[in-house]
């Protein structure tokens, strides 16, 4: 079985995605749980000065980080399942193949790896950040 990896973007035109990476887990306040996340603001990303330093404020936590270039780029692949024309989906080799499409590339990320600083006098937001106990 062969799955060709296609790139409908071409070479130079491959769109660049971004990653904002932090240690720990982002979650909503207990009272918001179960409600839709869509459109909900997580936090605010700031670049205070001309340095490549960034702050990310989530809830009452403030993280500091920087923009880093990935050692090796990541390509973003999307699995595309072609729809079989009218036939029920049977699992055998004659069914249409999954395809893989390159939809982007990631060369940089904004990485936050410091312990979050607690900001005291901020109103309770919906989204908060819970840091994991084990640093990554």
């Amino acid at each position, binding site marked *: *079985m*062969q*799955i*060709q*990896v*296609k*790139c409908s973007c*071409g*070479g130079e035109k*491959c*769109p*660049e*995605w*971004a*990653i*904002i*990476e*932090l*240690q*720990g*887990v*982002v979650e909503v306040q207990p009272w918001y749980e179960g409600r839709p*996340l*869509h*459109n*909900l*603001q*997580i*936090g*605010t*990303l*700031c*670049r*205070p*000065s*001309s*340095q490549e330093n*960034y702050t*990310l404020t989530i809830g009452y936590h403030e993280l500091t980080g920087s*923009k880093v270039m990935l050692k*090796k*780029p*990541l*390509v*973003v*692949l*999307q*699995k595309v399942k072609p729809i079989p024309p009218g036939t029920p989906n049977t699992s055998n*080799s004659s069914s249409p193949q999954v395809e*893989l499409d*390159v*939809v*982007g*590339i*990631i060369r940089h*990320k*904004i990485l936050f790896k410091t312990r979050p600083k607690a900001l005291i006098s901020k109103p309770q937001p919906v989204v908060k950040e819970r840091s*994991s106990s*084990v640093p*990554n």
Partner: protein
Amino acid sequence: MEQQLGSSSFQGPEAVLNMQPSSSIGIAYHPLFGSHPDLILLELDDKLLPDLLLHQRVSLRGQPDEDAVLCTQSKTYAIKFVGTSNSALLVPPSHLYQLSQNSQHQEPDTIIPDDGKLIVPIIQVAPGNMELLEVAPRLDKLKLLLSQKPYSYEEALEDMEKDDKTGLYRWPDLVDMVQASNGELENGLMALSALEIDGYWRIVDEEYMDMILRMLLQNSILNEWSLDELDEDEVVSVLVADGFPCNIARHCLHVYGSKVVDGTVGRNAWRLDARRVGVHFARAILRSGKMKMDNFMEEWLRKIPEGMNVSFSMLEGEVLTDKFGVETWVYAFRVSSLPSTPAERFAMLFRERSRWEWKDLEPYIRDLKVPGLSSEGLLLKYTRRTQPTADAEPVFSAR
């Protein structure tokens, strides 16, 4: 004041990557935020990017019961998923994940501050990414497939094309079934002396090759051909007259000879290779079992063409010797019949013999190629080395 933002007012990754000093942007869950299991992040060396993006020469290969490998034109890579405990928030380009005009996204409790800040959406929290590890191509299966129906003398005689194509493989079938890149697959076919007949890749069986080689040698005596300078056209026409197909006659020259780079224009010349001819006859003799060394050498040298120089050392990796008392016995044991993966190879070797001296072992592991592992590394990993005294030969046994 609540405000609902359509996806059209979302920024893209540039807003994150090209942030100006003293600026800030909001990070929010995209309306289509979710697990998106169809998205895969693959870590790739920069040097592989042109193959992937420009030339589109990268594919995943494997049967449903195998771990998929990634193949470029010339290399094969194992794929491993590496998870992360970090939260990697993925920002997609703004032209992707557009909501359609008619989509109903009623989220009355959406809370987005109305301060004119640009918003960057997160489509997924990536669970990790795939990593590649260069591996040796899995060519054992190629040998297995092509050995199902070797091309025999009987088959060559049949005029009709059989309808039953089971056990017969065309190039696309091999690509489908063998986890190797195109380049490695081609090399594998060459190493097996495979031949494409009627679009199917075949291994010619040893009896048929024996028939045609002996015919070639007989003719060389009759026609006083030099075995160092065989004229391809002459050899082929004589063998065709003797009843062999043209492609098989040519194949014989490829299997047992090497092209001579000749000054003469318009002439393809071949030199028979003593080792390959010697190995062929040794195997023919030992097909019925082990023999005493003296008997073997006598019969072997009798079969070798006049003027061709062979020595027993040419048979390394093809035969093994055993000493029983004063007698030395020799039997066929060929490296090409052994598995190509190190663990299995060493297992077979130690099953054959529990202890090996280096000079005997070396020909049987010489061809093992594991990216990133030297032969010393292989020995360290798979064998135990003992050396009774400082000047004794080191002996290798199973770990």
